[in-house]
C-alpha cells in the first residue's frame, strides 16, 4: 500500500506544467478567441515533441506505455491552463483505443494528428473538424472515418475552445475496426476529465487569491475579509478531497470491476463539482471583473460546465456508484476491495 507518486511521475507532471504555462497563457487564449481558432499548431507540435501524446500508447504502437496515473497528472496540468487542444480525448482516449484495435495503424505514427471519438454516451463529438480521423460506434463495433467521409453539423458550445459537432455517417464510408472497448474509453475519459477538473479548480482558486490580495475596498485588500476567505477555503477543501479519489480511480482503472467503475464515477463527479464550486467562488470574488469577458475566469466555469455533463451525466455516474453500494459489501475493510475477491 503506497499512495505516493514516484519521482519520474512528478518530473513528467513538472515538464507538462512548464510547457503549458509557457505556451498557454491568457494572451494565447485571447488571441485564439479573437481569431476564432481552437488549435495552436506550434503548441500542439511542442506537446507532441515532449512526448505527452505518447504516454498511454503501448510500446508496440510506438508509444511509451505508461499508465493512467501518469496521463492523469498531465491532464490535471492541461486543466490548469484550460488547454484548448483535445489532448485528453485524442491522446488519452481515442489513440489508445485505435492502438488496441489496429496497433500498426498509420495515424498512430503521425505526430500532428489528433483523433476524435464519438462515444455512444455523447450526443456530440468534440473537435471533429480538425481531427485526422473520427472513431465511430455502431453495435459495439468501432469504425474509423475522416471528417470528409461524414457529415458534420456544428453545435456551438458555450466553451469557446470546444468545437462540437453532430456526426452523421454510414458504415459504407468508414473503415471497420471490430469490437471495441467502449467502457474502457468511457472510464479513461472520465478519469482524465476529472483530473482536468482538478486543474481547472485550482486555477480558479489561484486566480481569485491573486486578485483578492490586490483589489482593495474599504481601505483593505478584499482577501482580508472572512466572507471572501471562506468562499475560497471551501473550494480548496473540495479540491483536497477530490485529489485522492482521482488518483485512486486512475490507479485502479485496470481492475474493470464494479468498484473500479464506481470510483471512476466518483472521481468525475467530485472533481467537477470542486471545479464548479471553485469557478463560481472565483467569479464572485472577482466581482464585476469576474463577469467580464476580459478576465479569464469564465473559461474555467465554461469548461467545467461542459465536462460535467459530457461523458455521462451526474445521474449516470451516481447510478454506477449506487450499483457498487447495493451489490457489494460495504464497510471499512472494503476501501480497496475487488469484486472478484468478494465473489
Amino acid at each position, binding site marked *: *500500500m*503506497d*499512495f*505516493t*507518486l514516484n519521482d519520474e511521475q512528478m518530473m513528467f507532471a513538472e515538464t507538462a506544467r512548464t510547457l503549458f504555462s509557457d505556451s498557454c497563457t491568457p494572451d494565447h487564449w485571447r488571441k485564439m478567441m479573437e481569431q476564432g481558432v481552437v488549435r495552436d499548431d506550434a503548441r500542439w507540435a511542442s506537446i507532441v515533441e515532449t512526448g505527452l501524446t505518447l504516454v498511454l500508447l503501448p510500446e508496440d504502437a510506438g508509444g511509451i506505455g505508461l499508465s493512467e*496515473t501518469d496521463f492523469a497528472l498531465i491532464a490535471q496540468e492541461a486543466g490548469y491552463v484550460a488547454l484548448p487542444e483535445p489532448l485528453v480525448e485524442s491522446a488519452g482516449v481515442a489513440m489508445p483505443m485505435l492502438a488496441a484495435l489496429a496497433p500498426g495503424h498509420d495515424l498512430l505514427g503521425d505526430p500532428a494528428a489528433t483523433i476524435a471519438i464519438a462515444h455512444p454516451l455523447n450526443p456530440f463529438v468534440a473537435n471533429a473538424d480538425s481531427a485526422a480521423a473520427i472513431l465511430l460506434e455502431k453495435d459495439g463495433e468501432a469504425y474509423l472515418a475522416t471528417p470528409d467521409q461524414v457529415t458534420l453539423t456544428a453545435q456551438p458550445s458555450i466553451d469557446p475552445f470546444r468545437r462540437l459537432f453532430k456526426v452523421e455517417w454510414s458504415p459504407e464510408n468508414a473503415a471497420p475496426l471490430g469490437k471495441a472497448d467502449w467502457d474502457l474509453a468511457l472510464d479513461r475519459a472520465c478519469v482524465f476529465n476529472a483530473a482536468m477538473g482538478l486543474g481547472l479548480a485550482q486555477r480558479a*482558486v489561484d486566480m481569485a*487569491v491573486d486578485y*483578492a*490580495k490586490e483589489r482593495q475596498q474599504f481601505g*483593505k*485588500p478584499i*482577501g*482580508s475579509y*472572512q466572507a*471572501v*476567505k*471562506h468562499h*475560497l*477555503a*471551501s473550494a*480548496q*477543501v473540495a479540491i*483536497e*478531497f*477530490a*485529489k*485522492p*479519489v482521482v*488518483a*485512486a480511480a486512475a*490507479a*485502479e482503472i485496470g481492475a474493470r470491476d464494479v468498484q473500479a467503475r464506481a*470510483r471512476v464515477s*466518483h472521481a468525475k*463527479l*467530485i472533481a467537477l463539482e470542486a471545479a464548479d464550486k471553485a469557478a463560481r467562488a472565483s467569479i464572485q470574488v472577482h466581482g464585476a471583473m469576474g463577469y467580464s469577458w476580459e478576465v479569464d475566469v469564465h473559461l474555467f466555469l465554461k469548461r467545467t460546465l461542459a465536462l460535467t455533463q459530457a461523458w455521462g451525466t451526474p445521474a449516470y455516474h*451516481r447510478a454506477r*456508484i*449506487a450499483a457498487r*453500494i*447495493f451489490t457489494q459489501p*460495504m*464497510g*471499512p*475493510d*472494503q*476501501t*480497496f476491495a475487488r469484486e472478484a475477491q468478494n465473489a
Partner: protein
Amino acid sequence: MDLTYTPEQQAFRAEVRAWLEAHVPGEPLEHFDATREGFEAHRAWEKTLKSGDWGMVTWPKEYGGRGLDLIQWLIFEEEYYRAGAPGRVNQNGIFLLGPTLIEFGTHEQKQRFLPKMASGEEIWAQAWSEPMAGSDLAGVRSTCVLEGDEYVLNGHKIWSSRAVFADWAFGLFRTPGTERHKGLSLIFFPLDAPGVTVNPIKKINGHVGFAEIFLENVRVPAFNRLGDEGQGWHICMATAGFERGLMLRSPARYQVAARKLAELWEAHKESADPSLEADVVRAHMNADAYALNIYQTASRLIAGAKIGPEASTNKIFWSELDIHLTQTALSILGPTAELTHEAPDACPVDWIDDYIFALAGPIYAGSNEIQRNIIAERMLGLPR
C-alpha cells in the same frame, strides 16, 4: 502508487480481526460519558485491549506500543470499527497527547506516562479552553509559577471532555506577565490533586460529557511540563495538527456509518422520499473520499512529510460529512427520527444520538470557521 495490501498487511488484518472477534464484548457497553459505571467498563476494555498488546499500535514498543506504521494503524482502526468495538475512552490521551509526547517528551516522561496511557490505567482529559479563551486559545489566563522544582497552577478551564471521570489532564498555562502566544506552557496535572475542583457540565444529549475545572494553588512537579517553559503554543499546534489531520476521526467510523445508512435505505426505500438515494450515495462518496485522503496522508507521512495546514481541510470535511450522513438517516426515518433509544419503536441504530453528536464536530478541535481562516491564510496565503 500501489493500492493493494502486502501479504504482511493482510496477515496483520487477519490477526487483528481474529483477536477482536474473540474479545469484543457481545453487548454494547454503557456510554462512557453517561455514568461512572460506563466509564469504568470502558477502562476495563482498554485493559483487555492492552492484554492483546493493542493499546496503541503505532507507539514504540518500549512505551507500550507495537512500533507499527500508519498504514497498519489504519488497518487496525478499520477492523476495530468493523468489529463494533467500544469507543476509546482515552482518545484524548492516546490520539492527541500521546503523539505529542512522543515528539516533544523526554525519555523519562515517555516512560512515565505512555505505558499507563496505552493500558487505560490513566485516562486523560484535555484542559485547554477557558471561559475567555475558546477559538482565541492564545487568550489563556490560567497561570503556572515555578517554585523550586514544582509548578503552582491557578485558573479556570472549561469544556474539558471526560474530565468528570478521568485521572489526568494536560493543560495550557501562562507564566504571569506574558502575553498571547508567548509564555504558554503545557503542563500535566492529576484531576484529584489538592486544589482541583471538577464540576460536571451536561451536554445537549444530557450526558455529563464535559466539565469545568478550577485550579487553586495546585502543586505539580516541574517534570510534568512538556517541552520548555513558553513552548506551549508550538506544542499545542502540533497536537492540533495530529488531531485534525489524522487521528481524531478514523475514516473507518464513517465507512461503518455509510454502510448502516445504505442498509437503512434498503429497508425503507419503498416508503421514503426517492430523492434521498442521492444522499445515501453522497454519504458513501464522502466516507470513501475521506478514507482515500487519509491513506494518502499516511503514505506521505511514512515517506517523511510533515502534517501542515491542510490538516484543517480534514477537520472541515469529516465534520460536515458526519452531519450530512446522520441527517440523511433522520430524513429516511421520517416520523420515527425523533425517538430516543428508549422508545419501543426506535430504530436499533441510534441515529438521533449520532446526529446530535455530529453537531459538535464543527465546534470542537477548532471551529470550522477558524479552520477556514487557517486554510485561507496559511494554505492560500490571503492576508490576515
